[in-house]
């Protein structure tokens, strides 16, 4: 009961915020709506007992990525009217609607497996065991930082003065 109420509140807030990101003309307010959308998604993770994921969502998306987006917006001109409408509105609406239909079709036609096992508590040791333990995902965990390191070095090389 309580979880249902929480889900609907978060879902409505999240979808409204996501629409605001697209529809607002003021780019700065659109970025703030994106922050709200990320927070709503983190709330939904919480209702699903994925507390670690929710906190990481806030840390990475709200704390870092949104701030970087806002910082990038500061480098553009015409922030308050920065999202002008153009002739691509109708095609964009068409593509978005098509995507929505496909997603809804996939959602309704999937045979969702519902686990009857109670959620793990506490979650952090299990996640750590999967990420770093034997037979876990240690290889992807190690590859991702190398990729990021290469990206960082690339960025430094690109912006370095001669």
């Amino acid at each position, binding site marked *: 009961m309580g979880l249902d109420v929480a889900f609907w509140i978060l879902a409505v807030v999240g979808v409204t915020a996501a629409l605001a990101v697209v529809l607002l003309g003021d780019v*700065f307010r659109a970025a*703030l709506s994106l922050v709200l959308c990320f927070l709503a998604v983190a709330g939904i993770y919480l209702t699903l007992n994925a*507390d670690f994921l929710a906190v990481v969502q*806030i*840390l990475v998306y*709200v*704390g*870092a990525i949104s*701030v970087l987006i806002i910082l990038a917006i500061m480098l553009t001109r015409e922030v308050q009217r920065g999202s002008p409408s153009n002739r691509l509105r109708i095609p964009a609406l068409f593509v978005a609607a098509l995507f929505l239909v496909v997603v809804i079709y996939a959602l309704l036609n999937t045979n969702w497996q519902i686990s009857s096992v109670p959620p793990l508590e506490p*979650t952090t040791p299990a996640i750590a065991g999967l990420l770093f333990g034997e037979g876990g995902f240690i290889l992807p965990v190690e590859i991702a930082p190398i990729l990021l390191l290469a990206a960082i070095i690339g960025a430094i090389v690109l912006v370095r003065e001669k």
Partner: protein
Amino acid sequence: MATQFLPPDWPGNFWAHWAVFTVIILVFLLLTVMAFIWFERRAMAIMQSRLGPNRAGPFGIFQPAADALKLLIKEDVVPAAGDKVVHWLAPVVAFVPVMMVFAVVPFQGGALLADLNVGVLYIVAISSLTAVGIFMAGWSSNNKYSLLGAMRQVASVVSYEIPVVLSLIGVILLAGSLSLQQIVQAQEIPFILVQPLGFLLFFCGALAEINRAPFDLTEADSEIVAGFLTEYSGMKFGLLFLAEYGEALAISAIVTTLFLGGWRGPLLPDWLWFLLKVGAVFFFIVWIRTTVPRVRIDQLMALAWKFLFPLALINLLVTAVEILVWPDVSLWLLVPVNFAVMIVLVLLWSKLFKLGWGRVNV
């Protein structure tokens, strides 16, 4: 040691627990912030051979209450060309995360709103939200000084987040848990002795994140008026001010919990130990403010990336190796080793790294 543990849903059911602790946190935050403002002004005055506030009540203890009352009845000026909705929302967005941090801070054994098993990570995540509020304040004011202050804030938060989180991992490795409750229980000796370098890095980084002197560039009055606070007045200014002191209080509480043994201590009741330690850490913050001059923005960035970040990585490596190699050794044995590591590293890095030469990019 008279450690009493309250049951997890004291006093009764979930909602009673929630209501009681929310009220406790609110009252604690408001009263302590007012006490801290008074304390800071008096302590700074003594350190600077002044008198400080001394008229309202004995030793001026009613000065913060008088200031709060004055703020409440002041006119609320909103910049005509600013973004009014964002201007109104910004103080709220800045203040709410500060209050939420206290949800996981244990005041006594078991006395906390929520014992999350991701507690430390929750604190780091929630406190990064304040930067969004401050950026909203700076942008919506439509004032170049406000925006400059907000840009500096974002730059410092993004850079200092990394050494702060890395220096916390040492504590988490030692305690074997992310829950603040269990970290306090794991501290047979305060972790400041086992993690001296981690404490130093965390304290520096935290001061920079909350814009306390010597890192108070976002409101450097001699350069950019009052930074993001410039266009704020009345209670909105009051709320931003409250958020700022609330952050200082939160940092004091987190340092107390992670490094100073939290509520643990002999003789006195547990909650009193907690308050005393928080007060001591805050006194240290005030002391630093009156002692160290403000750094420039390029020095701020250099300190984060060239000094704190590599040392935090080395600290993490050293702690991890110690825990792997001597899993059963007494923590007391790690104390001299880690102090030696800290002294060698800090001396070495201060030889390698000089603050203040090179180009100035403001």
